[in-house]
Each structure stands twice: as C-alpha cells, then as structure tokens.
C-alpha cells in the first residue's frame, strides 16, 4: 500500500510550535502574565487584555502522544488524584510532582480562565490548579443549552463576560481595549474560516485530508486562534492541500470506505488507528471534535458573538442536538459507516454513546462500531478487543458493499 507523503507544512508547524513555547517562557521574563485557558474559552478577550494564553489540555494531549501518561499520572495518583479522573488533568497535575518531564515542564499560570461548556472536569481541575499555584481563577459558567438558549442564559453569559472584563482591568490595571479585541476577533475569524475550508476538503472523494491529519494540524486553531501565526499556518496548509489535490495525493490512495469518528482520537494511538484504517482502505472524513473550532464571530456585537459561538456549539448541547448534528455531518461528508469511541476521560462525549449508536443506526441505516478506551491513558486500551471489534466491523462493511 502506498503511503501518502508527509505534509511540507509539518516543518512550519514544528517551528511555530517551538516559537509558541519560547514566547510563553519569554512572556514571564517580560512580566506578561501567563493565563491558563480552556479550549472553548473566549481567548480573544485574553489576548486583547495583553496576557499570554496557555492551554494545559494541549499539554495533556502532547504527553499522551509521547506515550508518557502512565508515568506522569502516577505522580498525581500518588497524591490522591484517582485514575478515574480526566487523563489531561492527571498529566498537568502529575507534571508538577513528577521528576521527569518528557515534553518539558508545564507553564506555571499567573491566573486561570475556564469555561465549563466542555465539561465539569475542567472546572474542578482548574480550580484545583488555582489553589496549588495560588493564582486567581475565573470560571465562565455555561448552563447547558438543550434546545433554544433562553434569554436569561444569554444575559447570564454576557454579564459574566463583563465581569471578566472588570476582573482583567483590576488585574492588569489597564482599561480593556475593545479595538484590540476587534483585531484579535478578525484574526480568529480568518483562522476559523481557513480551518473550516480545510476540514471541508475531506468531503471530496477521494479525500485529500482526513480526521487523523486534522488531529495533527489542529493545535494552531486551538492554541493560536486570534494570532497572525494561526492565519499564516492555515493559509500554507490550505495551499499545500490544493497542490496535493492537483497531484492527486489522497489520504488513502484506494479509498473504499468513508467513516465518521466520534469524538477525540486516542492520542497515543493516532498513528495506530490511522494505519489500521488505511490498511482497510478506510478514511475518517469527519468528527464533531475537529469541527469544534469552526466559529464565525460578528465584529459588530463582539461580546454577544463570543457568547454565541463559545456556548451554543455542540459541546454545550444536549443529547438530541448532538445526535442530529452527527447525522447531518455524516450526510454532508457522505460516509458509509461510523465509529464511536467511548472515552473514559471525557464523560460528556462518552455517556450516552450506546444509545447514540442505536439511534444513529436507526436513523441512517448505516453500520457502526463502538469501542472503549481512554483518549490519553493506554492502561485502558484493550488492543486485542479493539482489533476484534474493528475486524468484525470491516467484515460487515465489506459484506454490505458486496451485497
């Protein structure tokens, strides 16, 4: 089987990534406060306030990719943080107590900003980190939006953003700069637009870009959103994808099956899954996870728009909304089947997955498979069981294709 060549953009990624971490260290030396933020926090406000945002979730994913979670988590577990807790949190907490740092030390926060739209684990983790580092902690509390957001939920969220601005003004001693906010939002908009167009390329058949590629290339949209670097990076990546299309370079050269994958990848097994699917001539073309950062902000109503984008997406929605969005994505990306990952570290994505499996099967008539693991901690990765399930799944797909 011919393997598609590496992306040239990988080199840019590595360079920008190193620069980002250098900037974090330099920030502290220059007296710029380091702010921990969660992936779905309106980071545009943090940039506009002149702080340096740092993403501990990304730190967890990187430790996982290095297959070092068990070692780092052990230090957290020895302190009483149990292995049932989110592995990203265990990595960040464990790193503080661990003598080894396989990806370098986590950047100490001067203050912490968390949105609980993704999950309650983040709220508890950041609260615990705030206590440890003796740093102020701001929680953007986002009540679940099941169907239509109510007026008082919207008001509550906007009011909290004003409270956030007050908090930042007191902390920095500067008036909040709305002009700078507009600049940052424009940069976010551009990066989100490019990211969306890149993800949409997976709808082409055969696909030049898939879910596992997106997992590799997503750090800029998560961690550099709101900067020139993110925009530059995705312009380069999009250009490269267009070149690859011209040269007919696809994810899987002889693409037979197109899959939907929910939700995060198993980070220490990214390559393992990618190779296994490629061997089966299957390409994962869509996932709610990588589409999480497809946002569009309205510069005329910046705060309201930040609220709408960051709190009304699927991550803060109920069961039915999530299922319906998955089904719509499956149609849009023209998939043959779906794979659901029951992730121990992510209850909001995992709980309810068995009923989602049943409903998606009923409503689409497409075959699916579900497997149990952890997005970061390989102790919960039952390789034999997962191979067995996937083999059976692909045999079913193959039979259905023949029939």
């Amino acid at each position: 089987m011919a393997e598609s060549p590496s992306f040239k953009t990988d080199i840019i990624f590595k360079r920008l990534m190193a620069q980002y971490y250098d900037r974090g260290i330099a920030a502290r030396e220059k007296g710029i406060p380091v702010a921990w933020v969660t992936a779905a926090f309106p980071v545009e406000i943090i940039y506009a306030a002149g702080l340096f945002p740092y993403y501990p979730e990304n730190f967890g994913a990187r430790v996982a990719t290095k297959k070092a979670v068990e070692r780092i988590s052990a230090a957290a577990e020895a302190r009483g943080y149990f292995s049932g807790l989110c592995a990203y949190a265990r990595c960040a907490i464990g790193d503080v107590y661990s003598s080894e740092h396989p990806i370098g030390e986590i950047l100490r926060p001067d203050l912490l900003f968390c949105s609980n739209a993704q999950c309650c684990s983040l709220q508890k983790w950041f609260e615990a980190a705030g206590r440890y580092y003796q740093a102020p902690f701001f929680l953007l509390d986002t009540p679940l939006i099941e169907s239509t957001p109510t007026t008082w939920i919207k008001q509550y969220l906007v009011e909290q953003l004003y409270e956030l601005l007050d908090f930042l003004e007191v902390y920095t001693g500067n008036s909040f700069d709305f002009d700078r906010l507009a600049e940052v939002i424009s940069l976010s908009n551009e990066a989100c637009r490019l990211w969306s167009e890149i993800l949409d390329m997976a709808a082409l058949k055969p696909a030049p870009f898939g879910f596992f590629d997106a997992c590799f290339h997503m750090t800029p949209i998560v961690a550099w959103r709101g900067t020139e670097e993110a925009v530059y990076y995705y312009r380069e990546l999009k250009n490269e994808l267009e070149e690859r299309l011209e040269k007919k370079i696809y994810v899987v050269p002889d693409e037979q099956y197109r899959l939907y994958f929910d939700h995060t990848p198993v980070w220490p097994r990214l390559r393992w899954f990618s190779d296994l699917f490629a061997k089966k001539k299957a390409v994962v073309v869509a996932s709610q996870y990588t589409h999480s950062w497809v946002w569009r902000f309205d510069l005329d109503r910046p705060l309201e728009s930040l609220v709408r984008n960051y709190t009304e997406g699927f991550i803060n929605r109920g069961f039915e909304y999530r299922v319906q969005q998955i089904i719509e994505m499956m149609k849009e990306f023209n998939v043959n089947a779906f794979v659901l990952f029951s992730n121990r570290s992510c209850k909001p994505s995992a709980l309810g997955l068995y009923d989602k499996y049943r409903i998606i099967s009923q409503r689409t008539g497409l075959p699916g498979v579900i497997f149990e693991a952890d997005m970061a901690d390989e102790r919960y990765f039952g390789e034999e069981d997962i191979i067995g399930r996937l083999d059976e799944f692909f045999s079913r797909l193959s039979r259905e294709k023949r029939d």
Partner: protein
Amino acid sequence: MPARKTLKSMCEDFNKIVADPVRQLKRLKSGRTIKVIGWLPTDVPEELIHAAGALPIGIVALNSPAVACSAPHLQEWSCSLMRCALGMALDGALDLLNGLIIPLICDTTRMVTGIWKQTKPFVFMDNFLLPRQIDRPSAKKYLIGEMGRLKARLEQFMDRTITASELCASIVLYNQNRSMMRKLFAMHNRRPDILGNRNVYNIIKASMLMPKELHTNMVAELLQLLEEKVGENKVGKYKYNVRLILSGKVWEPPVVMDVLDQAGIVSVGDDFCTGYRYIANDVSETGEPLTSLADRQFKRLPIAAFAGKSKDRINSLTDMVKKNRADGVLFVHLKFCENENFDYPMLRDGLSSAGIPNFRLETEVGTHSEELFAQVMAFAKVLGRGGVVNG
C-alpha cells in the same frame, strides 16, 4: 385513643419508607390523584414543586440491584448513584412518578438526562440548571431567572398558577420540617446512643420521600419520646467513643451508618446532600420568595459541585469539626465521583495540616458492610479511641 408508639416502632416506620421506595410510591399514590414529581440530588427547590400542588420525591432511596439494569446505557465507570437511579427507572420502579427534575451538577447528571429522555421518558422532565460559579453577582440574578423558568414549567404541567402566598406557605412548611430535624440532629449530637446514626439519617432521607406535613408531625412525636428517654438516663445499644464529621455527596450505601454505629462512631455533622446539609439552613420567610429561595442556595454548606471561594469547603469542614468537638473527618466518596475526587487531596491536606485526622472510604451503591467495617475500625484505631462495640 390509639396506643402510644414506641421509639423502636417509630424508627421502623421511617426505615420502611427508605428501605422500599417503590412501596412508598405506591402508598403515596394509592387512592389519590396527586401528581408526584421526582428529583435527583441535589439542590432542587422542592418548595416550588410543593407550591404547584405536586408532591416532590427525592430519588435518594436506592434499590442497589437495579444498577445492573442501566448497564446497556451507562458505562460501568460512571457513578453508581446515577447508574442505580436510571436502572430503577428502567426496571419500572419509578413508573408511578409523573415527572422528574434533574439538576445539572456534574458531567454525569448533565449526560444522564439525555439517556433518560431516550429510554424512559416521563411526561414532565426538566433540567434544573443551577449556576456553578457562586461568587459573582451574575449568578444570583441568573438563578432567580432559572427558578422562574422552573416555576413556569411546573405551572404549565400542573395547569395552575403558583401564587406568591402559596409559595410562601410552602417555604414555611419546609422551614418547619428543617427546623424540627435540626432539633432531632442536635439531640443525636448530645445522645447518639438513643437513636444511632442509621435511624437519624433514615429520618432525614425519609423527609425527601413523604409529605412534609406528615414527616414533621412524626418527627415531633419522636422528639417528645426522645426527651423522655434522655430523662430516663438509660444507655443505648451502642457506646459511642468517637465523634466524626462526615463528608461526601451522599451516605451510600446506607450500611455505612450501620457500620459507624457498630464501630461506636457518631456522625455529628456532614455536608451530604442527603444528610445534615439538607436541613442546615432555612429560606427567609419575608421578601420575594424566588429571591429568598435563591439566597438560601448561596448560603448552603459548600459542596464540590459549585466553584466558589476555593477554601470555603475546607473552612466549612474545619468549622464543623471545631463547633461539634469532632475527633476527625470521614470522607464517604462514591467511586467515579469526579467532583469529590478532585476536591479530596485539598481537603485531606487542609485537614491534616490543621491537625484533624481524616480518612477516605470509597464506596459504591451496593458495597458490602464487611469491606467498610474493617476500614472504619482501622481509622477508629488511628484516632486512639478504639471504637468499642457495646451491643
């Protein structure tokens, strides 16, 4: 005139209510047209449900074998409290409920609601969306709005308007019940040998499973009898040598309290959603009632679900230890309860540095007593008081 009940038979009445929630539901519905609305722990404003003319019932008495019924829907690494509650519904144990309110206080309650709606929907189902930051002014304003939304939904379901005076009357009724139970708890604190932990905690739990008027009357009658017992100067079945504050979400499995009784340990306070925290404070009876209900929410004993001033919980536990002259703190944590597990190292270290001995029991709905007994006795020994069984 009916014969006066004995202490034992009164305790047995409460025990029957909590031991068989299905039978209790049947009794409540038998020959009556009343609508019964269930709520999952915790912090659902029951006064609103009562004022709407329905009977609020806590899903707090659990049939542990029902955990298995939820297996096709909820992973085994989610908390057994929610697995059991959903399992009971799937098993038909909650069929007599007319509705259910699920407060979203953690990722499991947040997601179980969707599964419930798919697998065993009630005519009336509601997610009560409590604010989880409680420090800033926006939270109170939002909570009053959320209470108003719940009130409107209940009015629609019950096809009636809840007047301010009806809500005030419900608040008074609930305050009376809480006040009566606080008297009972204070007496337990002074003389644990008369009722014992299990009976006192059963009584608190029973108040979530029956009409408040009836419960208040039963507790008043019991208190009268207890006062006489205190005067008699007789010693009860167990001798209590150790005084502890308990901490966790719920005191599950109930056998935890039996184990403490057998080990000679008295719970003199707790922050359980189904324990002292449930009765610790009242709603103001003056002022706008929804605002008063919201005010109470922010004054309740701090728990892991709400992010507040980070040291509130450790301060609250330390204060409880001092005020109640407790010897230490026993954590009763449900396995896979992320909220409690994230708070635990901070609470453990905070208590230890204040010189307060503490110990963590990890339980699940249905854990056996032998496992718990050995651990509790080991902790009692550490405290140097033995924990002598006197029965």
